[in-house]
């Protein structure tokens, strides 16, 4: 049997994972209304063929609620990771190119934000922004840019001293062309990998903050809300209320982490040996 090379299998894995995550988002959006339908004739049913994840105390289908929750979590993850990545890119580039004073100031900000535990910072920003969707998104976005900004800064500082950059500068190559041809292709793999690896962090922190009551409103079908509500029913034997949504969240986080890792291997094969 012909063996697939690892580059092809990595691409296949990337394709399948991206498709699965997009499928979850779309399906979750489709069942969002259905997931909130209450039916008091079917309350607290254990998992069965008809209700694979069981039902809750208001008769809501937990499978649909979990799908809708995951979809919301992934969308928040994409949004916050995107905003974080843009902030990281702008500040990283500014720190590396605008002189030692700006560099010192931005590096100080990075140290400051990194010095505060993420979850605490997300909670504080979320409260300051009035909680809810806006609070969580702002909190997660403003607390996750630091490591990526540091990475971008370091890469650019190193690239600026590379002999081929110095040679290009002395040959009269314009700064824009230098950035486009010599910097961007070197930074892009690191940046994209960092961006994808932000997703699992963002999703977990959104769920954690919501679970603790500082995030999304209770009427929204978020995994954090589901887990938080299920805590009250765990002692009465309703184990399915927390187990399946929790497992689904962990699976999505693992999928994103694997996606980031495979993307890194695909874009920068040499990093595998580092």
């Amino acid at each position, binding site marked *: 049997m012909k063996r697939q090379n690892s580059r092809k299998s990595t691409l296949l894995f990337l394709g399948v994972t991206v498709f699965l995550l997009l499928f979850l988002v779309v399906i979750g959006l489709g069942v969002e209304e259905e997931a909130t339908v209450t039916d008091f004739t079917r309350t607290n049913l254990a998992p069965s063929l008809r209700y694979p994840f069981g039902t809750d105390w208001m008769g809501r289908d937990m499978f649909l609620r979990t799908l809708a929750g995951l979809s919301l979590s992934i969308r928040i993850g994409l949004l916050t990771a995107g905003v974080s990545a843009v902030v990281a890119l702008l500040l990283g580039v500014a720190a590396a190119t605008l002189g030692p004073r700006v560099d010192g100031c931005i590096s100080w900000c990075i140290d400051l934000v990194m010095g505060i535990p993420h979850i605490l910072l997300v909670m504080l920003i979320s409260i300051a922004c009035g909680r809810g969707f806006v609070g969580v998104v702002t909190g997660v976005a403003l607390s996750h840019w630091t490591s990526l900004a540091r990475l971008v800064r370091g890469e650019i500082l190193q690239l600026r001293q590379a*002999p081929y950059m110095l040679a290009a500068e002395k040959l009269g190559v314009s700064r824009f062309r230098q950035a486009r041809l010599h910097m961007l292709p070197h930074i892009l793999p690191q940046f994209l990998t960092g961006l994808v690896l932000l997703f699992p962090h963002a999703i977990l922190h959104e769920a954690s903050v919501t679970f603790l009551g500082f995030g999304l409103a209770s009427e929204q079908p978020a995994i954090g809300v589901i887990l938080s509500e299920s805590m009250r029913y765990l002692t009465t034997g309703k184990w399915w209320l927390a187990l399946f949504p929790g497992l689904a969240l962990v699976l999505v986080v693992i999928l994103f982490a694997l996606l980031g890792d495979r993307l890194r291997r695909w874009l920068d094969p040499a990093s595998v040996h580092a």
Partner: protein
Amino acid sequence: MSLEASHVTFAYRGRRKHPILQDVSLQIAPGERVGLKAPSGRGKTTLCRLLAGYEKPLSGQVLLEGKPLSSIRGACPVQMIWQHPETAVDPLLRLGDTLREAGPIDPTLLTQLHIQEAWLERYPAELSGGELQRFCLARALQPSTRYLLCDEISAMLDLVTQAQIWQFLLKTAEERRLGLLVVSHSEALLERVCTRVIGLAEGM
């Protein structure tokens, strides 16, 4: 009119109290081939980097035809060639694209340097050190180039490639009246190639 380092002192960041070059003066006239020898760590490469404008001196100045080198915009008449050519070309760019960004490719120059046209479609990792060094020479020899700083450019190469490169460089330098600064540990090479040889003493 010449390339000149005038009373230059330089120290790397964090080592300001221990300058690697102190009050160094050097002049290279057009068509002159100056050899530079010194033990490792005495600042030969640093002096080249200063003369190329990659570093700014703590005191003193680098002048090109009487004007500060830092005031020159666009393609610089002073070009440097590194000891390790594999670091001097972007590993993610085809060699043809790297060469084109400096200006139009001169086919005669490629022939003189034994550079095959097929190499232009390749990436740096696909060429040997000697092939890449010839490529770096072709890139540095732009019509605007007046001075070449050769920092141990043949130390890593086999004898045949060394001979080819120096034969070409001497001929071109003579034809174009290029000023050369040749850094090398090989006294035989410096004597053979240069019109005068200077040494760099510790803390000079």
